[in-house]
């Protein structure tokens, strides 16, 4: 594509560079702080040390919080992939009015501000004795994670060539076999990317955990939130760096998956 002519081209490039720096600099800025040997969050660094990583990873509240986040995230992801995939199979290529309505309901947790979902869940789960339990937190996280599964999986299902299923049937496969051996493998990348998005949604949630989680279920972001309010030490930046590495890995995985999906979706 030919570039569009602009009178102030260098200025334009500079502006874009500034914006990109704005996007990345703060995140990059705190990583070195996690290696500081002092207790304050200022540059220049008095020295380098791994003491904060030792504090964070050496057991104690941070490690418990990380464990909680992974536990809740794993179960919330499994549940959302299960529910979301089943629902997508039911929604695909369905023109009925109730199908559109259900699609809206399935996607609405993305629309409703998460504070309202958190407060509503709190009021609803407390009388059921589900607040301050892992189950309650998993349920609430599943609610916000499911739309992230439905969108890619439904899109993948609708992009799927229906002739593949028909061909399988013509070869004598019963519907279950068609599903297991034709449909499912084709939507695997979409399911996987949905799972990654769902996991990220659960892992990153603070508001729901603030309202529903008890002291035993405190997740990593919940612990960070308290830390940011009460006692800001470089331990926080160590946790942040770990989370940055984690999400970057997830992101790169996502990119690889999307490339595979694009290749799989290419018409034959």
């Amino acid at each position, binding site marked *: 594509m030919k570039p569009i002519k602009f009178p102030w081209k260098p200025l334009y490039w500079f502006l874009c560079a500034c914006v990109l720096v704005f996007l990345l600099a703060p995140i990059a800025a705190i990583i070195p702080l996690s290696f500081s040997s002092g*207790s*304050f969050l200022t540059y220049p660094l008095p020295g380098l040390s791994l003491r904060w990583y030792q504090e964070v990873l050496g057991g104690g509240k941070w490690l418990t919080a990380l464990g909680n986040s992974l536990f809740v995230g794993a179960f919330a992801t499994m549940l959302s992939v299960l529910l979301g995939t089943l629902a997508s199979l039911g929604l695909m290529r369905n023109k009925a009015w109730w199908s559109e309505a259900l699609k809206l309901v399935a996607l609405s947790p993305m629309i409703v501000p998460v504070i309202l979902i958190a407060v509503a869940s*709190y*009021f609803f789960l*407390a*009388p059921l*004795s*589900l*607040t*301050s*339990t*892992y*189950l*309650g937190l998993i349920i609430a996280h599943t609610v916000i994670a499911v739309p992230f599964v439905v969108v890619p999986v439904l899109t993948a299902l609708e992009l799927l060539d229906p002739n593949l299923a028909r061909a399988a049937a013509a070869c004598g496969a019963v519907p*279950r076999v068609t599903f297991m051996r034709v449909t499912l493998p084709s939507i695997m990348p979409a399911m996987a990317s949905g799972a990654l998005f769902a996991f990220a949604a659960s892992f990153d949630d603070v508001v729901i955990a603030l309202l529903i989680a*008890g*002291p*035993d279920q405190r997740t990593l972001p919940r612990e960070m939130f*308290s830390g940011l*309010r*009460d*006692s*800001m030490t470089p331990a926080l930046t160590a946790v942040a760096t770990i989370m940055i590495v984690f999400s970057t890995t997830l992101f790169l995985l996502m990119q690889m998956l999307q490339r595979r999906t694009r290749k799989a979706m290419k018409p034959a």
Partner: protein
Amino acid sequence: MKKQVWATVAGAVALACLSSQAMAQSRDLNIVSWGGAYQDGQKEVFFKPFNATGIKLTDEAWDGGLGVLRTKIKGGNSTWDVVQVEADELEVGCDEGLYEKLDVNKIGGAARYLPGTVHACGVGAIIYNLVLAYDGDKLKAAPNGWTDFFDTKKIAGKRSIRNGAKWNLEVALIADGVSAKDVYKVLRTPEGVERAFKKLDTIKGDLVFWKSGAQPPQMLAAGDVVMTTAYNGRITAANEKDKKNFKMVWKDTPYTMDSWVIMKGTPLKANAEKLVEFLGRPENQAKLPKYVRYGVTAVAATPLIDKSLMGELPTNPEIHKQAFAEDVKFWIDNGDKLAERWTKWAGTK
């Protein structure tokens, strides 16, 4: 196959519900205090030793507010068992049935505690002052008290106060010329309240709010504010732990007592009572001032406290005579109304 799938799913859900109920019953005893350096000290002196007695204890932090406790009880399924509350929260909460009635014999007997510290719903924990704190390295000339706190022309820079009406209205009036012993008499009149808010308005543009006790020393360290109100123990702890040179002005500062309460309806009441008894033992309490300079409530603890720590203890007679007692009754009667007024004042420019 579908029926089997449904059966499995239903079974899994039922199992999960049951197990969550079981988990709810078998949760650990939970104690809630004010966080920061204070709670770190409490961990060393009380919580870890109590854990060693065999009853598992987890601890959490909160920033006060009766509404939080009301909501915990109303919402049900609260995980808070023993909580440290402020003086007015003790009275009002007791009245509203938020706490279990305390049997003083289960917590060591009335004779163990200083007079006035045992209550139907709670027992005293610490006595502390709300002081004027500043960084001795950055502010060379000591402020003379609350008058200087409210004088941005004499000492420029931001100030920090707690986000709430309590204690702020009193110091505003003192800065406006009311003597400490008349403060509550004036505050009981509507004109007095107006006068206090007007005085606060004069520095509103330079005000930053803190919510948790750990924030004032952090704000001083970061240079975000030049002066702040703070709990005396936190300032001393910051000086000792982080090698800071924070200074305090004790003149005309309010002092008050916080108490331990047991939340109503806790399934772990028996263990909670054991915990409160443990918290009241003189030999345990005597260890606290080393970490945070707060006065303690067990009679036999005072002689056990290291004499060198007395200099910054609120119960030190030299300090005590400069300070004035918080009028708990005033805050019981007017707390809600003034809290609402404060929220609106603080939330608008």
